[in-house]
């Protein structure tokens, strides 16, 4: 997963291979597939163009997701104001409805149903809380790296994770009850 500053060969393929994960995070974060597609392209292009400055001791995936989150944050700041936007530190209410991506066709009926419930529950989390879970799940980031990415204290990130996981668990349980 690591690439040195001059290791351009294969980096292009590696970035393309990671696009579905980055897109998975972005589409659940910004809630608009067409915007998420633009952002994932910009993320990978920026990563590729600045690969010369990338240091092998870092983790490529974490670096990539950091770029993605920064771009998403910029997009949130630039877009026409909507109520309940929390990614840039706004209110912690639920965000705008998130367009849930379809579950893969091979997931099975139960799997698709459960995934749809979880998508709906995720959409009801505040954006900062949702971002913590998304970084944990899609970027496999340890919480201290998530804190670095979101520029929040570790304790705040852990509190967000705890609140989000409990709410997610409650919402999904209610759906199944």
């Amino acid at each position: 997963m690591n690439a040195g500053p001059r290791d351009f060969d294969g980096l292009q393929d590696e970035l393309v291979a990671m696009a579905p994960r980055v897109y998975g995070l972005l589409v659940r974060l910004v809630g608009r597939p067409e915007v998420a597609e633009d952002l994932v392209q910009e993320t990978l292009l920026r990563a590729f163009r600045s690969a010369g400055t990338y240091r092998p001791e870092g983790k490529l995936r974490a670096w990539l997701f950091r770029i993605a989150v920064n771009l998403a944050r910029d997009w949130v700041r630039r877009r026409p104001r909507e109520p309940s936007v929390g990614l840039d530190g706004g209110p912690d209410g639920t965000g705008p409805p998130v367009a849930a991506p379809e579950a893969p066709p091979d997931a099975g009926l139960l799997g698709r149903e459960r995934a749809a419930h979880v998508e709906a529950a995720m959409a009801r989390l505040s954006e900062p809380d949702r971002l913590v879970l998304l970084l944990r799940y899609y970027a496999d980031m340890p919480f201290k790296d998530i804190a670095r990415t979101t520029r929040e204290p570790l304790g705040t990130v852990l509190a967000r994770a705890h609140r989000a996981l409990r709410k997610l668990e409650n919402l999904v349980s209610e759906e199944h009850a």
Partner: protein
Amino acid sequence: MTRCPDKTDWVLLAAGESSPRRRRALETHLVECAACREELAAVRRGLAALAALPRETPLRPQAAEALRRRLAVAAAHRPARGPVVGLVVRYGWLAAAAALVLAALLWNPRPEPPPAAPPPTAAVALPSSGAAVADKITEIAAALEILASAGVSNGRGAGGPAPDNGGRTPRPLPHTGFEELERLLDFVATEGGGQS
């Protein structure tokens, strides 16, 4: 019974990020605290729910194709070497031109006027040949600036974001820039050499 830990401790434990020492302490507490066992179980159920989401969400085919195309364009414009070497390659020709100008001036210094009778404006006005060289240096600097900005679209500035023009051939560098530069450098070399 030991004091109940902070709830965020259960997040770290469930995520496998507790230190071994902390984990042992938490597990010891769990043996004697049903409330914390339930807390940990709920956090684990939340993580398990998260795992129902597909790890990968494919881009639409046209978006994936656009991504590959844009990466290919970026690859065609990327510098072939590391960042430091790339900078040297990118701006080395500018440095070489500046060095040439400097060398021309140093090789042909104009003798200082006699100190006993300095002209009234000696402090601010260069001798005529020196002023001509200075004018030409100013012109060269302007020409270099034009070339540097034109060089971005000519692949010389590949380190920055390449203009994504849909894979079309980059705009060619205007010939007049190089011709002007050569003419100016010739002037400095010949004029500077003849002003002793």
